[in-house]
């Protein structure tokens, strides 16, 4: 099930945050959405999940996402928000079970699989307020995965994670992509993006600067120009990882 964006524009207040974005995302792959602060990354994934009013089209195969029944849309597209907040001190299994809401059940198999994949099964009966930041972000990922969506849109899932937990989180996304889910993930860390992403969508002030296989997009020239930084490439496992060294012209 392909997720396609065509002519997508979003205005927040009077400011146009996204201009005419075109992109075709493929299932079973991880697409990293990269760009400087304010480039419109979060806005893009929110609009793709029909959580923001927008112009242009977002389609799942032939169907317009915005025209889907909200529950059906929620079954197809899982959205992991940036802020890892749970407002009440609920039990972990209750939080994860929220992912089943669009299905109207509490399917133990799906919840169990989500707990297992995120390595949170042993936390199931703990109150969420007692968890560490890393545990909480795993629980919230489990919440989305419990809904067994076809697409996972994750907005900066590494925001509050240390390097080890960040790498674990991305490895989990890699695993769900391998099982056929389409993954679109907003990232800030260029090295991690290059390490994990199949494709990269590079945004610059609301416009697509580049979209394609990671190796072709994450070049020192392109990344340097969009982020305004000097970039060195290091090679690891056949991938070229761009490391920012300093500001360009600074």
């Amino acid at each position: 099930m392909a997720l396609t964006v065509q002519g997508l524009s979003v205005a927040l207040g009077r400011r146009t945050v996204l201009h005419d974005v075109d992109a075709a995302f493929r299932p079973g792959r991880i697409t990293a959405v990269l760009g400087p602060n304010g480039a419109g990354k979060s806005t893009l994934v929110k609009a793709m999940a029909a959580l923001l009013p927008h112009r242009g089209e977002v389609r799942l195969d032939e169907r317009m996402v915005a025209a889907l029944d909200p529950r059906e849309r929620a079954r197809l597209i899982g959205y992991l928000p940036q802020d890892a907040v749970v407002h009440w001190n609920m039990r972990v299994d209750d939080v994860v079970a929220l992912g089943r809401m669009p299905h109207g059940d509490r399917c133990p198999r799906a919840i169990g699989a989500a707990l297992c994949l995120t390595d949170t099964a042993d936390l199931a009966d703990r109150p969420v307020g007692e968890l560490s930041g890393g545990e909480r972000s795993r629980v919230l990922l489990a919440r989305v995965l419990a809904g067994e969506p076809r697409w996972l849109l994750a907005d900066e899932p590494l925001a509050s994670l240390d390097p080890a937990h960040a790498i674990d989180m991305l490895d989990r996304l890699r695993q769900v992509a391998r099982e056929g889910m389409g993954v679109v993930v907003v990232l800030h860390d260029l090295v991690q993006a290059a390490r994990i992403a199949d494709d990269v969508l590079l945004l610059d002030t609301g416009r697509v600067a580049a979209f394609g296989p990671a190796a072709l997009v994450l070049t020192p020239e392109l990344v340097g120009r969009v982020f305004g930084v000097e970039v060195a490439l290091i090679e690891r496992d056949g991938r070229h990882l761009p490391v920012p060294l300093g500001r360009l012209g600074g």
Partner: protein
Amino acid sequence: MTRSMRLAMLGLLVALLFLGSLACGKAWVPPGAWLDGDPRWWIIVDLRLPRAVLALALGAVLGLSGAVLQGYLRNPLADPGVVGVSSAAALGAVAALVAGAAGGATVFAAAIAGAAAAMALLAALTWRSDSTVTFVLAGTVLASLAGALTAFLISVAPNPYAVAEIMDWLMGALTDRGWPDVALALPPMAVGAALLWRTAPALDALALGEVAAASLGIHAGRTRALVVAGTGLAVGAGVAATGVIGFVGLVVPHLLRPLFGHRPGALLLPSALGGAALLLAADSLVRLAPGAGEVRLGVAMAMIGAPFFLFLLLGARGSAWR
């Protein structure tokens, strides 16, 4: 103990307190009077039974609306009294009384309109803000504005006898409420409670924030409409029948969270039962107080509730509630 066992215990407590409420009063009616046609039986049927029914229903909707407001606004300090919805309902009712309404359906409609308007205003003001401060400030402003307007209306009321009557009613009590009050209050309360009841899944989803709730297929506008209309009907009708009785909705969900968990949707039924139990107990106690008169129920609840609220505020400092 499982959740259903705890619910059954709470239900049993409500039933016992209901029976106890029938037994409480200045006159003792022997249990045998129920069977042998003793004329004192009418004290039970015409005086105490409607009062107990009203206490049960009012406590249930206050507990329920407190749990719904706390879940909806993701704020443990929310309650129809604290956020000014009860004061706005009282303003509506007083406006109708001062304008010459003879009581009854007009006063109910005005109180319901006042409560719904306050709730809609509050939802619009605070929906986009995650901050407890904005919310409590908006509620406080609303409550004092409604209080000031109510005082203004009372001061310009032409009839001193009506003024005394209004003041008396504002203090909140179940004294001398009869079957006509029950007949007027129960239908809007029941409809309001049914609307509030339907918010349960949305409240659970809102624990993850409004955007995540929307991504789970929850319709924000529909949820808001349910909360506004449900609170308006339930609290408005309650205030019209009994005056302002505060703190039930604040205290009850807090007392029950340790027993029934923090999931907002799972707290609705326990809070309704707990509210009913609290109000039945309080209304029985005020009747047992020595002396010719009674302590006003609204006054008694405020004397219990206000220190509890203070205690919560102190406890909330630096906690993870935000």
